[in-house]
């Protein structure tokens, strides 16, 4: 099960955080701070997995953004890496060549897409098509209602 996912920039700025385990805010902040420092200190060719406290951290950098998942011991590292990749693909498809700015300005969308992919720390839907379909249906619902308001 995934315990949490963090997206942060090369400068160490947090862009998205999703927690699937309940921790007090203080602890979350501490974990976030420490983990960001640890990951940023690693060199490019290093392995994408690290044993960190009692979790297994899997991370990957896409352009200026780091995607970082904390998993439990028994979880599959390589597939977590691909889960990150799938998420990036979804963002990319939705925003059309996603960049860090898209995620900053539309962070709520980034959350909604993540919720379709991973739920309660477990993988929900791996099909790219199905996730995009669900998001499109949500957007449609919004636009319909907006139209209704305007008229």
């Amino acid at each position: 099960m995934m315990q949490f996912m963090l997206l942060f920039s090369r400068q160490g700025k947090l862009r998205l955080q999703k927690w699937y385990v309940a921790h007090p805010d203080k602890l979350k902040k501490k974990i976030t701070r420490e983990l960001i420092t640890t990951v940023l200190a690693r060199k490019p060719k290093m392995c994408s997995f690290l044993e960190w406290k009692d979790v297994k951290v899997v991370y990957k950098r896409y352009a200026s953004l780091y995607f970082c998942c904390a998993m439990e011991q028994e979880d599959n590292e390589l597939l977590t890496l691909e889960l990150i990749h799938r998420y990036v693909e979804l963002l990319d498809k939705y925003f059309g060549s996603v960049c860090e700015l898209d995620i900053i300005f539309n962070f709520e969308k980034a959350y909604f897409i993540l919720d379709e992919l991973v739920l309660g720390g477990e993988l929900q839907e791996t099909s790219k098509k199905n996730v995009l379909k669900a998001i499109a249906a949500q957007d449609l619902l919004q636009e319909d209602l907006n139209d209704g308001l305007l008229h």
Partner: protein
Amino acid sequence: MPAVRGDGMRGLAVFISDIRNCKSKEAEIKRINKELANIRSKFKGDKTLDGYQKKKYVCKLLFIFLLGHDIDFGHMEAVNLLSSNKYSEKQIGYLFISVLVNTNSDLIKLIIQSIKNDLQSRNPIHVNLALQCIANIGSKDMAEAFGTEIPKLLVSGDTMDVVKQSAALCLLRLFRKSPEIIPGGEWTSRIIHLLNDPHMGVVTAATSLIDALVKKNPDEYKGCVTLAVARLSRIVTASYTDLQDYTYYFVPAPWLSVKLLRLLQNYTPPSEEPGVRGRLSECLETIFNKAQEPPKSKKVQHSNAKNAVLFEAISLIIHNDSEPNLLVRACNQLGQFLSNRETNLRYLALESMCHLATSEFSHEAVKKHQEIVILSMKMEKDVSVRQQAVDLLYAMCDKTNAEEIVQEMLAYLETADYSIREEMVLKVAILAEKYATDFTWYVDVILNLIRIAGDYVSEEVWYRVIQIVINRDEVQAYAAKTVFEALQAPTCHENMVKVGGYILGEFGNLIAGDTRSSPQVQFELLHSKYHLCSVATRALLLSTYIKLVNLFPEIKNRVQEVFKADSNLRSADVELQQRASEYLQLSIVASTDVLATVLEEMPAFPERESSILAVLKKKKPGRIPDDVRESKSPLPTVAPTAILNSTNNTNSSSADLLGLSTPPGSAAPTTGNGLLDVLGDLYTSTKISPSTVQQNNIKKFLFKNNGVLFENELIQIGVKSEFRQNLGRIGLFYGNKTQFPIQNVHPELHWTDLHKLNVQMKPMEPILEAGAQIQQMLTAECIEDFTDVPSMSVSFIYNNVPQKITMKLPLTLNKFFEPTEMNGESFFARWKNLGGEQQRAQKIFKAQGPIDLTGTRTKLAGFGMQLLDGIDPNPDNFVCAGIVHTKMQQVGCLMRLEPNKQAQMYRLTIRSSKESVSQEICNLLADQF
């Protein structure tokens, strides 16, 4: 500013831009505070905000939170959004709640109500939103509120697939919060059959749920094995076009495959159904075959997904540990990865091989890769990969390669990363001990360890080398010589001084014949280090010096000078001062005979599991493979009596090993004729024996593990027992006190809580010869907390007359306690947490005699819990903490005993997380003081 999709919130985008344009941290904070004030006034203002505005402000708060600021308002507005009939507002409301509301919020009732409404909605998108919220923040309250609805949603025929997926994971979340929510009976089979669902997304979500259910109740869900194997088989044989969008970079459904392989690791290989087993083997073979095929894509995603499935398959093979062919094949496959150019693969291959090394089928195959693993340890650029290599070397080590591996690890230690040194030291120390055929080699290794990485050598390591040297005559002279040589280095680590001091004090005489290491030289060498050492080491050296006086009377005067030196005799440190003055006195007053008795060579230490191993296990719980190959490379056999002798020492082995905390000298009274008192104490303490017990008084064994269990004029039955975690070994010693044999000795066990406590008795000789003693071993395993104490009846024939004795065994629940240290703060926090009616037990009882606090203290110390001093504000009160280990669970337990001297009463309170445990511990202790 990039284009905003959907219904953009302009105000939000402007705010985000503003923040991004801030030139400094201060400017950013200023802007945020301004915005917070604005939102606060809007929320408090008289004007009612419309949904859009609420949504916008709530979104801004979310963004501010993301920037790392605390948000302490806006929750109510977010909850209001939940009941909006506009989807986008509702959705933001739910987002805010899942990011910012914790489960014990006052608002939870309102939230639950909104979720209820949305679950009723006809629009599946609304239903999903509600389900997602539960899956993200689900609590016990929610489990209560939705416990009946969600299972129905999951298995009902007319639920849409997307809703089913969310429902499965939602149920999983609630199950983790309160396991009783899953209905049993026919539901079990309906849930299992989700594995057959035509929709792959539903199967993926359901497999996670089933995996959790299986972990809780493997038998009930056993049916899932067949279905999982069938599903897996369909996936691995599918061509990548079959599964359409569930194929990921030419790999068919990698996530589902991995989940299914994971699910199967909850069971032993399906042996009763050969068909299923065969099919599973075929799947695994296919996965291996595919791994060998040329890649269908050069993309890393392709190889990652393919290898993810492969690694999970290997995990399953290791878990099953039953198919030698597959295990060896796995090993060869991983061997290829060891030289792959992807760091990730090398890391995982080392990790996985570590598990393979513990299987007897593949251990040899792993050893073939030793060379490359050693290279990995030395050459990898990433410390986490080097760490894996070290772990693997440790796991693959056995008698045949120990010398080489230890040598390589020692060599690497000189340049190893600081972060892994301490652990490496422990590993080297363990391997050297475990596989030593020649203990001179062992001594060399440990001294090298201290030389190379002295700072990382923990106490356990040097205690252990001394233990071993003392117990093995054949290495003592060698150890003395080697340590003497090591000390000659101009700078040597303090740990070396400690070991040197101890060993020369005991065995310096063995090398004194050589003029190069004459008594004088030995002493001066040690003393040359004295002034550079810490107080603890100096104290140890002082003990060494008095031992040297005993070994070599010719240096007595020189040693006395040292004791007399102001820096010792008048040392500011009380321990040094005391030792110096007592040892000085001892050297003056005592005759050679007395001195020889007091400072006799240390007796052999009881054999026991290396305390170093315990430290390593603690450092890396779950990562140190238990030695499953023990049968192949047995540890030095340990006589059962030796284990019994170590009773009570085992827990505190590291602390009292060398008796540093109570050195021989400091135990002596400092006043009057010290020496005689020392000896007096020594002699009386050996005479104390509880042989006056006439009947089987089980109550006193509550506080101790050894003693006489039963005695009459014919027979004496003694007991020695030791407990660790939820296991115990009880040795019974039957002694025949008469001049004639006792025949047909037949012991029998009786107890009712068979399923709570498992006791096994080893067979024993039926004849007890005159004056002889025989022993019998019993093992006990605590499954669950119990109240019924097993009794044993022993029937035998003496002088043709049948006899029968019945006695209770000293096997009470408290024996499975592990003492727990904690400070006052955490004690009271736990004490408060365990305040429920179901958790407390209390008794008030009359003192058995005049209240004797020291006596009570001694008793409690033997009860098994940790006595915690300085926690209770009233110094007369006793508080203790401990963990009861049972196979089913561990139960934390706190105790408070309050004596009332006026009333001659005690009040005893027990709190634990389990009612029956509180009750039983309370019953055991009541009326004992």
